[in-house]
């Protein structure tokens, strides 16, 4: 046992959908500042595992602890307030609003301004600065006034990451951030994630199919297959693991 409390601890989490067991007794510890990748074949239960962590639905059994505190009973919005930011496998943004408005709503919500009838000049400036900051991070400053729904797929995914960052999360969960991206876009998003991890010290859990991205970025890798945790270790250990080779890496991707 390490002496520090892990950022995220999941113990024995399961999720059943009727007779289907999507996640089966998975435990995981993610330390502060770590970048953890979760890999596994389609239908392995990766997204479902994210949904358990973020409170999208309750686990059938098991516990979720954030900073050592059991959050099983905390609803999704409450977990966000406690520092969980998340992006989705299928981009979830506000399509008919501009990039800046998307960022602004996220920033204002993160700052706890969302019930305010108006903002004074200081607060307005604070919001505007924070919007500029996340748009710069996501490389979207020049597209600030475009409708997000009209941007390229890659830019939309970056916009979603920007919104999650606007909340200044202490734990960032990214579900296949490079899905459907071309090489250039993948390279950009990978760069962003690395900067967030190395420079800004974010704790990140990342679901990812692209092995180049995973082995390039991750401190540790967890492998899910058929709802179970198959293996966990450093990229070198996972690369050398026979079970993983058979279950996943060996397969044509």
């Amino acid at each position, binding site marked *: 046992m390490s002496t520090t409390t892990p950022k995220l601890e999941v113990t024995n989490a399961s999720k059943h959908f009727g007779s289907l067991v999507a996640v089966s007794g998975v435990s995981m510890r993610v330390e502060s500042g770590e970048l953890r990748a979760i890999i596994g074949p389609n239908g392995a239960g990766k997204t479902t595992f994210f949904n358990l962590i973020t409170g999208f639905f309750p686990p059938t059994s098991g516990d979720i602890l954030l900073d050592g505190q059991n959050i099983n009973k905390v609803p999704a919005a409450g977990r966000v307030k406690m520092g969980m930011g998340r992006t989705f496998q299928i981009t979830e943004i506000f399509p008919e609003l501009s990039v800046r408005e998307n960022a602004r709503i996220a920033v204002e919500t993160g700052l706890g301004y969302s019930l305010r009838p108006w903002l004074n000049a200081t607060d307005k400036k604070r919001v505007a600065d924070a919007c500029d900051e996340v748009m710069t991070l996501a490389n979207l400053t020049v597209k600030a*006034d475009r409708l997000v729904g009209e941007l390229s797929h890659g830019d939309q995914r970056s916009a979603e990451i920007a919104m999650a960052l606007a909340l200044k999360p202490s734990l960032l969960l990214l579900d296949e951030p490079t899905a459907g991206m071309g090489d250039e876009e993948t390279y950009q998003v990978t760069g962003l994630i690395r900067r967030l991890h190395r420079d800004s010290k974010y704790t990140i859990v990342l679901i990812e199919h692209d092995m180049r991205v995973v082995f390039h970025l991750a401190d540790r890798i967890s492998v899910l297959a058929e709802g179970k945790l198959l293996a966990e270790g450093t990229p070198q250990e996972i690369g050398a693991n026979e079970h993983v080779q058979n279950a996943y890496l060996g397969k044509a991707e």
Partner: protein
Amino acid sequence: MSVTTPSAAAPPSAPVRPWLQLAIIWALLLTVPLWLPLLGGYTAIAARVIIFALAAMSLNLLLGFTGVLSFGHAAYFGLGAYGAGLFLKYVTASTPLAMVAGTLLAGISGTLFGRLLVRRRGVYFAMVTIAFGQVCYYIAYKWNDFTGGYDGLRGFARAPLDFGLFKIDITGSGTLFYYFVIAVFGLAVGLQALILRSPFGRTMLAIRENERRARFLGLPVERHIWLAFSISCFFTGFAGSLYALLNNFADPSTLNYVMSGNLVMITVMGGMRTFWGPLLGAVLFVMLQDYVSSMTTNWMFFVGITFVLVVLVFPRGLMGVLQKRLGA
């Protein structure tokens, strides 16, 4: 690349010159008594347009800006009307206080009822809102002694505005009452515009655009829908109280689902995603109601046809089309 400051209320096809649109609308509204008679209209009909427009703009806070389907807003319009009428009849002859009474009755009912609604979505939300409207309708309809039942509530009249030093007599059906309606309309929609531009207003748009994203930004979505619903009910009740003042009469049909449907039609025809759309929708609706009903008793049929045509030809409503044409 043009650098415009996006506003919360800006629709997708934001007009290039919002101030111009505003200037035209207010210039037309303020000069109604000058030009409407030339077209064969009378000022009371313009007051009816304004009141329906206010009710529909209030409903549009939900339909167009929060993305929540309330198909029972006649309840709050009617409660506003009955509240004002009952106050004038049984309490005291004060126009402003009657409006406060109607607004509070509708707004508080909406707030209490909204609490039961917030977990429902889509069609289920819509059905529960209709059901509540019908409950209010039957109460007004059956409770003869107090509400006048089937015949409606009579025996009250709007009182002159008393400012202490001077009085303004709005009891006539002419220009003064119209300007009174325009003044309170301006206050109400000004407040609505401020709400839409506030951080809270932006969360309404967020919920409309993507409820899941809103929730995973940490927004307590249910609470925000509840608040938006309450606000909308207060404004709709305010419009209802004006309607009772206009007619010196409160009619159970103001509570009926037909009225709810009319408000939805006005909003959709005018353009749900635009702030002023319902005003245009109300102009069209009242024109149809007034002119067609003088020719045939089946005027609702023509309203229905018009509605279908507008929706098919201009899915974004009349205002949506205008803005696109003029803004491009």
